[in-house]
């Protein structure tokens, strides 16, 4: 159920970006980064996104989720380790508690792929060809 609310948050954030664009755009793909140590279940999020964007400006937009594993750093052993979610979070070698999370807490919109609706053919487009790394807009 909480994916419903997470999706709401996602839609709100994207809407903010969408409205801040000078010209109208069509969003095609949204790339998300979701850490393993969050309350978000990627599959449920996909589903919720599909349902909640029906008949909105995001209908049909593809949601691409990249999972990031939980990685902690043990300062005693001076090394990274992967805590076993649900079982053990302390360092498997020395039992120090998990204090320094290096990755796994991410919940972010990495980037948005979009196309311009106003087809300006006179050379004013902001990017040439099928550039995948156009200048940052936000």
């Amino acid at each position, binding site marked *: 159920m909480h994916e419903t609310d997470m999706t709401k*948050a996602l839609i709100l954030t994207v809407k903010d970006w969408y409205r801040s664009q000078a010209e109208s755009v069509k969003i095609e793909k949204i790339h998300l980064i979701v850490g393993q*140590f969050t309350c978000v279940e990627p599959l449920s999020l996909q589903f919720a996104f599909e349902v909640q964007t029906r008949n909105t400006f995001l209908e049909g937009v593809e949601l691409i989720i990249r999972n990031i594993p939980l990685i902690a750093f043990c300062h005693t052993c001076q090394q990274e380790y992967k*805590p076993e979610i649900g079982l053990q979070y*302390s360092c498997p070698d020395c039992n120090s508690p998990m204090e320094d999370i290096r990755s796994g807490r991410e919940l972010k919109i*990495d980037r948005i792929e979009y196309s311009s609706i106003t087809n300006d053919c006179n050379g004013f487009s902001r990017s040439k060809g099928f550039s995948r790394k156009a200048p940052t807009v936000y």
Partner: protein
Amino acid sequence: MHQTFDAALELNLLHANQKGADHNREHFDRWGITCLNIMSSPGAGKTVLLEQTLAALRDKFNIAVIEGDMTTELDADRLRQYDVPVIPINTGRSCHLDSKMVAGGIHILEHQHNPTDLDLVLVENVGNLVCPAEFEVGEHAKVALLSVTEGEDKPLKYPVMFQEADCLLITKTDLAPYLDINLDRIADNVRQMNPKIKIIYLSAKTGEGLEPWFDWISNLVKQNAVNQLARQI
């Protein structure tokens, strides 16, 4: 020709909620209020603990409650007995409070009560161990409750809330003798992922452990008031 552009956002998914939470906290700071976000699974004892807390601390601090876990109007009525503002939030079907809902509560505080007179706002979140931890509402500290009846392994299975909490209250300790549970193991499991957390064992029924909880709140309110003043100068 079809051109696609790429906008690197690198924005937190909860950006909008976070902005709202920061805004709420600015209000609290301006009014000199400390806000606590109180979270647990349903039935861990949040409302009963709030009642005890109001009874014990209302002479010391001016307190208001933002109630997001209303099963019925009865919960709010139970709290209103203590003569403090109780603002119920209609969370609809949402499984947690978000900063916008709490902003609604702050708006009511601002217009129907005198927020500059308040010292402490207690927010009772929706009963749920998973999501509330991800949605900040503008609190200065997070308090998680875990009742002894829920079992030792809950923090391992629902780690995010316990990893984020500043204070853990292990509640209903009066029931421990009837259960096959190792109280130390609950604490150990939580400290595995959050070694700095303050842990207090208490029973709202017998009153055992309530004093350390009241002390923890009192210290936090005083410390926070000092910080808020320092920032205004």
